[in-house]
């Protein structure tokens, strides 16, 4: 486990800690900023991964964009608040927002408890399918997370 992670546990006096292996779903694509994409035809559902929610801590607030606005790959479109921090949510692909998960306003904990299902954040109409090629598949993303956590 990463050195900083061990020190964090000690300093914060916590027994539970980011798990060694987070859930990574097949059939999804992943960004290096820990968002996932589920492609369905020419649209995509976007959320944040189990690895991300685990490292963020309990999400208490989700700042959501508006339907109809555009998102650009790599740029932030919203934010989550956890453990006194706001963390940007970045678009893994570009497109126009078709739907926003308004349930997250009342139930931000869905991001933690169900990151790939009830915790979905936006659905977009994909503007450039080629952008998907720059994302990681589940195997690559799993390795990426392990490297970030210092586990191999």
């Amino acid at each position, binding site marked *: 486990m990463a050195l*900083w992670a061990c020190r964090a546990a000690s300093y914060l006096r916590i027994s539970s800690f980011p798990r060694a292996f987070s859930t990574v779903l097949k059939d999804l694509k992943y960004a290096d900023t820990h968002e996932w994409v589920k492609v369905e035809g020419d649209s995509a559902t976007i959320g944040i991964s189990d690895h991300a929610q685990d490292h963020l801590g309990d999400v208490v607030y989700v700042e959501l964009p508006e339907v109809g606005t555009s998102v650009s790959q790599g740029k*932030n479109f919203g934010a989550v*608040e956890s453990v006194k*921090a706001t963390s*940007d949510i970045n678009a893994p692909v570009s497109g126009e927002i078709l739907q926003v998960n308004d349930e997250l306003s009342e139930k931000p904990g869905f991001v933690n408890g169900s990151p790939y299902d009830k915790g979905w954040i936006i659905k977009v109409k994909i503007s450039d399918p080629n952008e998907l090629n720059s994302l990681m598949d589940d195997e690559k993303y799993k390795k990426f997370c392990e490297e970030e956590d210092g586990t191999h």
Partner: protein
Amino acid sequence: MAAGVVGTRGAGRPLMRLITMSGAPILQQLHLEERLLRCTGDNWCIINDGTAPATIVMGVSGKVSELVEIQPVLQDKVPVIRRFSGGGTVIVDQGTVFVTFICSKTAVAGLQPFPRDIMSWSGQLYGKVFDSFGEFQLRENDYAFGHRKFGGNAQSITRDRWVHHTSFLWDYDMKNMDYLKNPKRAPDYRQARNHTDFLCRMKEYMPSRSVFTEGLISSLRDQFTVQPTELETVVSDDTGFKPSTKLLSLQDLEDIINTKGSHTVQEVQA
């Protein structure tokens, strides 16, 4: 998003540009922080020794009706700000010393840009500053001597950078705490204590503010090459960026009294 990095590693340490201010209004400080976070690629440390006027500062998701005693705030015309970072509500004044770190995610080797990792790093940095003055603890997300809080933290994390900022209670006016309600979300170690029993003043543990700030800069120098930077040179690089930190208008506060629970905010020109 990030502009090019100014300066390179010196003596094997990354560069950190240091801005020191005294009495700067907290709204201006927060706007500066947002701009440095979003529009530059440099590492920054901002120290602001005291602020005026006394101001209530809420986190990004703060609900005024739950956190603030609106009637006395309106009566006494206390400004209320919603800042861009997470976390709780504070009332800040001349007795508050602010310290902010704005860093690229590669600034600290091996540090992942997640809240608890950054908090742990900060706890180690400040441990070197405070250990000789009291029983310094990083308690959940607060800095404390023993079980009494003297520093509150908040963060904002982007794709490639992060802000960790702290309001330190060098001193505080107890009557200002009457403008704040006891928050619903509180750390476990608070144990339902009121402000008087929960907080402590740094001046009761350390001889002077300058001992604190000099100790901080010394601790920073273990990890960074610290370069003092004039505020005027930073302000002159204005890119037209619009910060999200907002001063709530009088109308906002009156609306909240009239329709409880609403916290829609109109932007007010600083």
